């Protein structure tokens, strides 16, 4: 049996536009924003916890004076990566949105068209995790660093 062979059975291929977008682009669009959010969480929490509580006694001020800027920069870098993921997914969506009958609303409801489904998955995931990044980064403006 030859792989990628749906011709033996009488159905159309679920992803007729799969050659328009690379798997790498779809994967980057899906994973960039969640990975950026996760990296921000782990790096920022670990850095700030160590800076404010390096040994046995909690400090009133962090051991690094530039901690605030470091946390902001991590948030900004994460946001840039999330936006990049969103843009790549958006491009994938624009290239494949006609993969199956019906509009974006139809895709959201029934999910038809595998390539455009994963592209839309990436758009939505990027938006959600960009929001999570924004929400977490906002903490540096409203929450004291150590106490």
């Amino acid at each position: 049996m030859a792989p990628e062979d749906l011709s033996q059975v009488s159905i159309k291929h679920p992803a007729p536009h799969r050659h328009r977008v690379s798997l790498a682009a779809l994967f980057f669009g899906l994973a960039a924003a969640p990975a950026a959010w996760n990296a921000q969480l782990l790096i920022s929490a670990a850095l700030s916890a160590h800076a404010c509580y390096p040994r046995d006694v909690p400090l009133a001020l962090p051991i690094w004076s530039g901690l605030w800027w470091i946390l902001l920069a991590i948030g900004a870098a994460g946001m840039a990566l999330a936006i990049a993921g969103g843009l790549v997914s958006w491009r994938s969506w624009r290239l494949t949105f006609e993969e199956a009958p019906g509009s974006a609303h139809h895709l959201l409801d029934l999910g038809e068209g595998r390539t455009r489904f994963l592209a839309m998955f990436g758009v939505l995931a990027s938006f959600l995790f960009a929001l999570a990044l924004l929400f977490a980064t906002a903490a540096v403006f409203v929450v004291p660093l150590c106490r």
Partner: protein
Amino acid sequence: MSEVETFRAPIIARASDRSPSSQILKSNWEGAGGVAGWLSSVDHKEIGKRYLVTAFLFLIIGGLEAAVMRAQLAQPNEHLLTPEQYNQLFTMHGVTMIFLYALPVLSGFSNYLWPLLLGSRDMAFPRLNALSYWVFLFAGIFLYVSFPLGKAPDDGWFNYVPYASRAYNPGPNIDVYALGMVLLGISTTVGSINFIVTLLRMRAPGMSINRVPILIWGTLTASVGNLFAVPAVSLAFFMLWMDRQFGTHFFDVSAGGQPLLWQHLFWMFGHPWVYAIVLPAMGIVSDGLPTFCRRPLVGYTPVALATVATMALGFGVWVHHMFATGLPVIAMSYFSAASMIIVIPSSVAVFSWVATIWTGRPVFTSAFLFFVGFVILFVIGGVSGFMTAAVPVDLQLTHTYFVVAHLHYVIIGINVFPVVGGIFYWFPKITGRLMNEALGKWSFWVMFIGFNVGFFPMHILGIAGMPRRIYTYPEYLGWGPLNLIVTLGSYLFAIGVLLFFLNVFVSLKRGKRAGDNPWDAASLEWSTSSPPPVYNFAVIPTVASRYPLWEGRLNQSDDDRSSMQEGFLLDKGRETMGTTSLDAEPDVILKMPPDAYSPLVLALALAVLFIGALLHSWWLLGASLVVILLASTSWLWPQRSLSQIET
């Protein structure tokens, strides 16, 4: 591997359960029967039913423990239980419900349903599936082994050090818990691997990733989550056992260890686990609700994403269980933010369910009532969880009965209600008979009212300052009347659960014959007989849409329709179709293993190994290692029938 066997051109035929080819399939797939067949079966349907029955037995045990605790707390100054007995009861209640009921019951659904939902003849690794069940069973027995001796785990299900350390808890209580959890982790891990590979490899031709039911998304997400989460807790329990038995100091602050490390490792596992025990249950509702609303789920794509996103975010919230430990505020704020943002995917799912009901034509069956009840309880449990995501609020609420209320709304509301609804929904498929609807509605209303009467006042008790895990309280605090209401409500809830079990037993014998598709549902499992034949499908179905049995009414074009009657026959031994990961293109013929004793023997040997470790019986441990080696060798020995030997 034999190219001829696995890459031969398979025959495409038209067949049903009444075709002559089905007799061949039946003889290929049927086990030995009798006790031998029962012990060696690797049929996913058998394993799924065993998971369900065992998990419900643990639910009953955990429920009885709760009933005794509620009798103790019904009045101030009660002395039905000693403090030590109460500690063991609340610990075993939590351990039983969270580890031995909540996930295993969902594994039962998924094991039974996955191949039927995906259009396959079994899971990817049938023997691993059997191993997963046997290890779960033995781990459950192991965790209860010291209970009759009055030495059960007694430090709560999250087992904080230093109370769990040997200095403060010298008996075998914590060692049983530590080793039992490592053993249970093996079951969870192999089960998760099986689900993931099954999804990637075993879908019917045409069932691309965007056409799988939400239950599949839920169990897949839970399985991936478990693979990342379980190692943290297995490691933590192993380190604790080493601290207790061999004098290591991982958690011993006097020797430079870190008690907080326990909390980090436990909750890195614990919170994703919470999502593992609710996401498949949410999938049950997402797949069942549309059937009773006579329309597709509103927003399949965002709900699928919400399922995955919830688990991803769920790995960034563990510190919200540790807000009172004195971590720096900015560090906590990241976890607080993540805990709040998780409300977005949860709300997407809620709005989807509400819109499905709102725009559908609901049929008020018992299953539908349980699904709607779930949505209401999900919102209440979600809102109380959102409250504890805020650090200042959590500092007031932590370790109070408010948290007990929240976690019961989550676990009973988002697990038990969908599970019971799911049983009403799939009981006809599993047994061939319908459950009694009148009794079903009674059980719903008694459970729903009893649950809210029993558990909502716990919020108020928590705000009034009642701590969790106290075995009694003085009268002057004024908590008596509300505690009495809680006890009466929870007993009413238990009566509702009893009515449900009664319904199951009565319907097994006297239920109305169901037919193949009594609910006129849309997914593949309803295209086969009820109960399904041992080989599941007479031919491997071909899938052209998300709702293969509703294509006529959804205006699917005539030249692109799913086919249940015509497809790959695959009748040369135990065979099913291997397909590609994204688009489910036919790729390879998979040769599936026959029934085997090796999973049972391996699981038994693993259990004995852990008993040896518990008793410090090194010869027993060594002997079990030898059996493990032999059983593994037998398991992995290449077989011609599986095309593992060149012909």
